[in-house]
């Protein structure tokens, strides 16, 4: 069940970006998604791209889609439509080389989107419960307070949502490096623990391979400026978002969980790519904590921004939905967790988040190898 019912206009390849953007300009009500993917990569990365793009279309917040391809790319509109045959959603395609160029392709896509929007408008609203929700957890631009305020408060909200029968996804494997001990204690079974350990160790080995002696510095400059010194320190604060429920399952990037409750997804710490993995798995909303302040949102999936300090909340009021800095002034994480859950349910009923109001939506898929 979705908490939005968007008509997506989705580029299947980077070359279709201009057409998709043009449709978005003409019809601001559609969710126009462009990206840098769709061609020029090795098999595993193209597989990830197809899985993630198809997952985004299958996200419950998407009611219908117009796929816009170029015509000579690997991830074509036809190929993607084929993988969506069983989605039960209206899927239309436009191919720029067949349409006679970008202007005509935009005309076609606009006409198709208008028709789909009309169909979506006539659908009745359905009633759901918290148990229908799958919520992704994310942090971006962490500071030292993130692990003291916003993340533990999100952890409390996550615990409450799990009690109510919902699902939460803790992602960002990079930010589990150095925090494996406390995480493994939450694993429901030895099988879950072994998979979690393997994922984190693989990510750590990759960080070491790619970054060498800087492996410990998978911190952004702003993290260090704010007082965070080591990746373990950042990670220990980061994992607080998951709360204290048992970890039921560990899933791959973009893979739909088969269990309810707390689930771990293997994603990079890079927030944009991490959100794409969770959205492709079916998350209808994302709880996003920030210490330094980031305005990013995600297409079709409302992102709720929670600040780690009241200073940030006051400095970027148009980007932050809720202030967890009140914990430094005496509120408990549990109290703020209740506030977060309350806001999440309002957003599920249709209230717009700051990122939605600001039109902040960016999309990128995690990649393993180089471009060719």
């Amino acid at each position, binding site marked *: 069940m979705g908490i939005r019912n968007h008509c997506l206009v989705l580029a299947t390849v980077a070359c279709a970006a201009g057409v998709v953007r043009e449709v978005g300009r003409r019809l601001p009500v559609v969710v126009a998604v462009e990206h840098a993917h769709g061609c020029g990569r090795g098999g595993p990365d193209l597989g990830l791209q197809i899985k993630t793009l198809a997952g985004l279309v299958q996200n419950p917040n998407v009611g219908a889609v117009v796929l816009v391809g170029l015509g000579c790319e690997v991830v074509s509109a036809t190929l993607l439509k084929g993988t969506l045959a069983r989605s039960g959603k209206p899927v239309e395609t436009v191919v720029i080389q067949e349409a006679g160029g970008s202007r005509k392709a935009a005309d076609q896509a606009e006409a198709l989107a208008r028709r789909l929007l009309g169909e979506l408008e006539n659908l009745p609203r359905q009633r759901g419960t918290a148990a229908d929700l799958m919520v992704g957890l994310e942090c971006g631009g962490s500071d030292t*307070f993130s*692990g003291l305020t916003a993340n533990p408060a999100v952890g409390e909200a996550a615990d409450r949502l799990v009690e109510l029968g919902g699902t939460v996804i803790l992602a960002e494997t990079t930010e589990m490096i150095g925090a494996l*001990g406390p995480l493994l204690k939450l694993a429901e079974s030895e099988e879950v623990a072994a998979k979690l350990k393997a994922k984190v160790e693989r990510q750590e080995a990759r960080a070491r391979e790619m970054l060498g002696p800087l492996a410990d510095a998978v911190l952004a400059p702003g993290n260090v400026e704010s007082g965070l*010194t*080591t990746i373990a320190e950042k990670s*220990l604060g980061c994992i607080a978002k998951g709360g204290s429920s048992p970890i039921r399952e560990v899933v791959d990037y973009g893979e739909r969980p088969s269990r309810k409750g707390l689930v771990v997804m293997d994603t990079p710490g890079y927030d944009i790519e991490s959100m794409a993995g969770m959205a492709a798995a079916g998350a209808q909303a994302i709880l996003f904590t920030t210490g330094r302040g980031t305005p990013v949102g995600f297409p079709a999936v409302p992102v709720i921004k929670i600040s780690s300090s009241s200073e940030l909340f006051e400095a970027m009021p148009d980007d932050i939905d809720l202030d967890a800095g009140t914990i*430094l002034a005496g509120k408990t994480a549990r109290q703020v967790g209740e506030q977060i859950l309350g806001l999440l349910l309002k957003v599920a009923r249709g209230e717009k988040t700051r990122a939605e109001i600001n039109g902040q939506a960016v999309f990128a898929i995690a990649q393993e190898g180089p471009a060719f």
Partner: protein
Amino acid sequence: MAVLGIRVHPKDNVAVVAADVEAGGVVRLADGSEMPAVEAIPRGSKVALGPIACGETVIRYGEEIGRATKDIAAGEYVHTHNLAGRR
């Protein structure tokens, strides 16, 4: 005026300061205990709650966040100049 210092776990040997602290300023924890800062510590950074010898573990959230790379005195500023991840 004392600045709030946040210690999450009883095992922690550092606390995070909720505001800038001047040299000689006082950091007060929730349990009422106080630690004079021997140097200026910027908001959000860590203060040593006791002496930490070079090579000893630095603990926050009750877990190791790294090792001291030099001797750290009680009340000192703890960051990249005297703490590194164990790698």
